[in-house]
């Protein structure tokens, strides 16, 4: 206990260095800009900025990525409130009440509520991050080779199933990713496998694949659509603040949404887009001012925003402890972790504990930056959110190329990124799952080592894969993972339907943006 407290304290001291503070501010601002632009998503932003973190210390790099993540989730609410277009799917529910408030001349109040609720949602989610992560990480100490194999399969079943319209197509995407992950030298025997040139000796460069699948593919998605002028951001003159009474009203809403968002975040496979609708619906259920819903309720904005930001801390728990990211953004974050040479699990809370606790402390401080930058920069960010897709297309393309080149300073990396960009575009067009491919590229080698080491120790007998209780638990979780889309899909549809009934808004219109 004392050791943990001292690690927490040291983490804060390390996080408070000028460079870390500067990176937090920069990351949050970058995240808000990415989040408030309807054509870009949080995962895409984190993927795009990944190469920038290579030369940084691991904790600083992770803090930057965490800051972009939190900033982007909040940033989505700015365009949702001011131009009725959620910047990210996580802010779809915010647009319902937020835009109504804007129409009533309360845009400033709506933005303050979104920022205030996001801050508390994110800050409270750090509590569970601090307390549950080490406990869950200890569990993985019991894992042997066979368990690691099943764990990688579990991770894939979760993300492949949930993020796709068809479960089988999602799993196919995961299997395709696993197959691609076998390109390169055999990790046990060193034999060349499926290599058209020696460039692929270390396998497919995960970062290039990430940038291609998430960012470059989004450029092609933008390029295929007619360039439309975005709605004009409403200029607001009302004060950005809440009265004491209003703060008292939204306090229980934020608390409930924190619990909802946190649980949704911890649950692999469910993400911020589900949490925002659940938070919104729950805020209405418990509200004493139900009549205000659909006409611009601050409780509705607070419920949605606190829930989607509470997901951030929660979703890092399975990512850091088990190596199972629940959604696209955390899959990219995990990519950043692996690229830094770190493996999710007990090591992060043992050998690398100082780094992990610095990241946690940074994640707490990021919430304060989000509050400050969010409140001070709302007007400016609102104008940026109107930036045309015509400008975004070449800008993001150039950043994708320079980002992929920066890793090994090899033009072949740019080629790989472009190939994955085209592959990602086609996959998204045909309802395949790009996040599953990325995760498979990360988990594939872990699963392969697990499977082959297990088979080697058992002299080829596959019974070793079913030899322990943990194996059976993981197999059961894999089955749950495959079946979970049925439950999650119903949950999301139910929450959206309820939100539609409560507000009279057209949810389909708000959630039509195609963002990974």
């Amino acid at each position, binding site marked *: 206990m004392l050791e943990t407290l001292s690690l927490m304290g040291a983490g804060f001291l390390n996080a408070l260095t000028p460079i870390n503070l500067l990176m937090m501010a920069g990351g949050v601002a970058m995240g808000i800009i990415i989040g408030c632009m309807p054509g870009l998503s949080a995962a895409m932003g984190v993927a795009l900025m990944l190469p*920038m973190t*290579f*030369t940084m210390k691991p904790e600083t790099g992770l803090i930057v990525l965490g800051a972009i993540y939190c900033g982007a989730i909040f940033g989505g609410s700015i365009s949702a409130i001011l131009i009725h277009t959620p910047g990210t799917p996580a802010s779809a529910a915010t647009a319902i009440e937020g835009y109504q408030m804007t129409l009533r001349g309360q845009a400033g109040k709506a933005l303050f509520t979104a920022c205030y609720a996001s801050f508390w949602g994110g800050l409270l989610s750090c509590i569970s991050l601090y307390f549950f992560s080490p406990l869950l990480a200890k569990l993985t100490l019991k894992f042997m080779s066979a368990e690691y194999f099943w764990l990688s399969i579990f991770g894939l079943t979760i993300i492949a199933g949930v993020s796709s319209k*068809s479960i*089988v*197509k999602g*799993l*196919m995407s995961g*299997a*395709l990713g*696993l*197959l691609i992950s*076998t390109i390169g030298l*055999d990790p*046990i*025997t060193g*034999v060349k*496998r*499926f290599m058209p040139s020696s460039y692929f000796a270390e396998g497919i460069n995960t970062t290039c694949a990430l940038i291609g699948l998430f960012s470059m593919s989004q*450029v*092609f998605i933008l*390029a*295929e*659509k*007619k*360039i439309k002028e975005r709605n004009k951001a409403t200029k607001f003159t009302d004060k950005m603040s809440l009265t004491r009474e209003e703060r008292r009203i939204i306090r229980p809403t934020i608390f409930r949404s924190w619990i909802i968002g946190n649980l949704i975040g911890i649950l692999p496979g469910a993400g911020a887009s589900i949490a925002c609708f659940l938070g919104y619906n729950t805020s209405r259920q418990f509200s004493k001012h139900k009549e205000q819903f659909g006409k611009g309720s601050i409780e509705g904005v607070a419920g949605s925003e606190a829930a989607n930001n509470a997901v951030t801390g929660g979703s890092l728990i399975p990512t850091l402890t088990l190596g199972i990211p629940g959604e696209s953004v955390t899959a990219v974050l995990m990519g950043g972790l692996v690229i830094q040479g770190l493996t999710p699990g007990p090591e992060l809370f043992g050998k690398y504990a100082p780094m992990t606790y610095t990241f946690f402390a940074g994640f707490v401080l990021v919430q304060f930056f989000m509050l400050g930058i969010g409140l001070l920069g709302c007007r400016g960010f609102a104008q940026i959110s109107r930036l*045309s897709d*015509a*400008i975004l*297309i*070449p*800008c993001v*393309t*150039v*950043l994708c*190329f*320079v980002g992929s*080149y*920066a890793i090994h*300073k090899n*033009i072949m990396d*740019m*080629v790989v990124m*472009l190939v994955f960009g*085209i592959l990602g575009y086609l996959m998204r*067009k*045909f309802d*395949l799952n790009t996040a599953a491919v990325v995760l498979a590229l990360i988990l*594939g080698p872990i699963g*392969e080592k697990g*499977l*082959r080491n297990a*088979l080697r120790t058992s002299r080829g007998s596959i019974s070793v894969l079913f030899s322990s209780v943990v194996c059976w638990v993981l197999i059961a979780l894999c089955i749950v993972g495959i079946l979970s889309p049925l439950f999650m899909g119903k949950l999301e549809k139910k929450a959206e339907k309820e939100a539609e009934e409560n507000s009279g808004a057209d949810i389909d219109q708000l959630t039509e943006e195609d963002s990974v």
Partner: protein
Amino acid sequence: MKMKKTDIGVVAFMYIVCAYFYYHMLQLKASSQTYPRFTIILLFGLTTLYLVQMIVAAKKHGVESGVDVVFKDFQPKQFFVCLCATILYLICIHFFGFYISTVLFMAVVLLYLRISPLVTAIVIAVIVALIYFAFQKFLGVKLPVGTVIKALRK
């Protein structure tokens, strides 16, 4: 739900991938075949399962093209110009280096997408400055100079 004809392409693509990897897997030592074989079987099995689902859907609900859904609002000219410009950009980087290619690529795409020349110039200046300071100065990345430029310098 009706079967989409476009999914035939998805299934065909997956089978081609399986066949390609299977052919190359056979050339590996037996000990190196274990894991690739597992993943090929997995992908083959799932693709076949999806094919069965498609056939069942076709029998129950009929068949639809799917092209109108997949390529809704598709702007072919704009898309292919952007795609070709991106590929040419990559080739240009190899020959003329990063900065010259970036300026050319951005100017072509921005002007093609009807951005005014003034805004185009501002956007290019901002991006080039951002890359210079963030990547070249801050991260110390030496961006490609280009084979032609290298030869000219000599």
